Structure formats: C-alpha cells, structure tokens
C-alpha cells in the first residue's frame, strides 16, 4: 500500500469510544434553551428597572423580597413538593452528567475502520442463528441483547424437543464472531409448553 498517506489508529479508537457513549446533546440543548430564555427575560426586566420603566412580566424587587420570606409566605404543603420537584429535576441532570451513558451498541472488530452495530441489529442476527439451530419458525424465537447478558427464549414446536445447549453454543459462536469483547453471557430459555409449528 505504498503511496497511501495517513495513519489513524488513535483517531479510529477515539471515534469508536465516542460512538459507544452518549454525547448528552439533548439534555444540554433543553437546559441551554431554558436557561437562555430565563436570562433574556431577567436581562429585559433589569434594563426596564435601570431606565425606570414599569416591569414587563415580573417585578424583580418584589420577587426578591418574596423569595426572602418564602418559608412563611407559602404553606409547607406547597413548598415541600415544589422543592422536591426541583430537587428531582436537578438529580436527573446531575445523573445524566455523571453516569457513563453507554449506548445500546457494540464494537465490531475491523482492521480498517471503527465499526459499531446497534443492539437491535445484533439481536436480529442472533435470533436468526438461534432459529436455525433450534429448527423452529421465526415467531418462536425472542432474543434480548443487553450489555451483560443475551437472553434467548425459544418456544419449541409441539413434540419436537430443542437442545438448549446446542442453541446456546450456536448463538455464542455467532456473538463472538461479530462483536469485540467483553462478551455478554448467553442465556437460553426453552418454554415448557410447545406451540403448533409454523
């Protein structure tokens, strides 16, 4: 490959890490819009105060005075739920910032590019593999893909037993051939009652 410029192993790893974690753009945009709107309103009110005009929506002087007397002014039955609501709102924002924010995606090993696959797509292909291994129809297999665990539930056709271990091995082989580690563990459940085959 002489004559081809550019080496980007570090950039690829960085792109992969960004793609597997949430950017928090949505909570940031919502928070930014609300805070900006509040600041613009307060700016307007402060300018009106400075030039001596009557207030537009809120009288800053009166609001500040009321805020100081809040515990006596508002009954506890209103102030406590309101305080808790504000607290929970803050908790949601703080958790969005602090939690790792992993997306439901997996990295796929590849020599040339950073590759990620959505869990939904992975579940569909594992379901297909489990269906072939169990010898049942597409409607008889349900696969749920989590970060730690892949759950495969099979409803066998009446009278035809399904080998859970064989299904587990097939699904695990497919999983290991597709995504990069750490691998989730594969758990196969065979429903106790069969259905009429499709």
């Amino acid at each position, binding site marked *: 490959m002489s004559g081809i410029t550019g080496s980007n192993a570090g950039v690829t790893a960085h792109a992969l890490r960004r793609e597997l974690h949430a950017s928090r753009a949505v*909570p940031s945009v919502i928070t*930014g819009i609300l*805070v900006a709107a509040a600041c613009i309103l307060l700016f307007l009110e402060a*300018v009106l105060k400075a030039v001596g005009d009557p207030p537009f929506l809120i009288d800053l002087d009166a609001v500040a005075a009321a805020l100081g007397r809040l515990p006596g002014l508002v009954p*506890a039955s209103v102030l406590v739920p309101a305080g808790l609501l504000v*607290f929970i709102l803050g908790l949601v924002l703080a958790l969005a910032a602090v939690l790792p924010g992993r997306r439901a995606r997996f990295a796929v090993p590849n020599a040339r590019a950073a590759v990620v696959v959505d869990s939904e*797509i992975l579940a569909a*292909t594992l379901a297909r593999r489990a269906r072939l291994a169990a010898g049942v129809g597409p409607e008889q297999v349900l696969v749920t893909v989590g970060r730690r665990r892949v759950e495969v539930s099979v409803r066998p056709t009446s009278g035809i037993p399904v080998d859970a271990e064989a299904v587990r091995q097939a699904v695990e082989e497919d999983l290991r051939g*597709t995504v990069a580690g750490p691998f989730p563990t594969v758990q196969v459940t065979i429903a106790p009652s069969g259905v009429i085959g499709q």
Partner: protein
Amino acid sequence: MNSTPRALNRILLALFGLVLMATGAAAAAAALIPEAARTWRAVSSSAAAGIRSLGVRGGEDWLWVLLALVFLLLATLMIIWLAVQGRGRTGDFIQDRGQEPGEAAGTVTITAAAAEQALKVALQDRRDLVNAAVTTWRFRGTSALRIRVYPRQGAAPARVAEEVAGLVEALDLVLGHRAPVLISISAGARARFTHADRVS
C-alpha cells in the same frame, strides 16, 4: 463523529443539576424544619442588606445596569453552548498543498461529495442494505467519513462490516489517502418494518 463538546456538556449539566438539587433541598428543608427557615430568612435579609449598602454607594440604577449585563453575558454564553452542539460537517475530504520539494506549487482538493457519492453508489446496489448514508466530518484535525448502513433484518453485521470496509479500502487505493472511517450499522425505522430476505 461530530465535534459536540462532551466534557463541557457533562460539566455544565452537573453544575445546573447540583444548583437545582441544592435549591430544591433548601426550599423543602425551609418548609419542614423551623431552624432551616430561620437560617433562610437570616441569609436572605443579610444578602438584602449587603445589596442595599452597595446601592447607597453607587446609586441604584448602576446596580440594575450591572445585573442586566450579567444576565446578557449568561444568555450569550448559553447561546454559544447551544450553537456548538453537533457541529463538524465539512465539504472538503482532502486538501493537499504539495509542499514537498520537486512538487509544483498549488493545492489539490478532493471534495467530500466525491468520496460520499463514490461510496453511496457502491452501497446502493447491495440487496442486504435498506439504505446507506455517507457524511464527512472534521474530526481531530482530519476529515473522517461516517458511513451509516441500515441492513435488512437478519443480515450478518460482521459480513456487512467487512464488505463495507472492503469498499473503503478500494476508495483508499483510488484516492491514495487513508482517512479515518466510522461504519455504523444502525436499526432505522425502515429496516425494522421490512421483511427478512428469505432467499439469501
């Protein structure tokens, strides 16, 4: 692949979250505990006294102007924060200035559309993909390609990844440049509702 400032997002969200948590907890405590209510009133009255003494010294209008400027600055910062989310699309794929000795002076530019169209056309014919989108982003000082493919239900992601990477390698050979590439195998709404290809 965009240049959303993720660390800044986390810091500001944590900051606003903590402020809201403290405010809410203080309000609830002031309503429930008499001691906390007394502290609340004491703090607010001393703050009011401090502001009043400032106002006496410089005139009250001056304080309102200062407050207005602070809010204007905050609003501007918030709008800047909003504006930097999700940016980073670029129209240039390669820009080579040819600075090496013996080369003619000048710039060679390959637009992003060239690389994007080449890959899109190559991906269009594949029967195991419902759709594909190729975009170019300015990422860590270079132009990087993001290839988003929406496979049909049941298409093996490992094989899709390998074959798309093969197309990228062919593009490398044509352009003589290895750009960073992200291949994202996504579940779009359309892929979800189309049937699995039974023949393959």
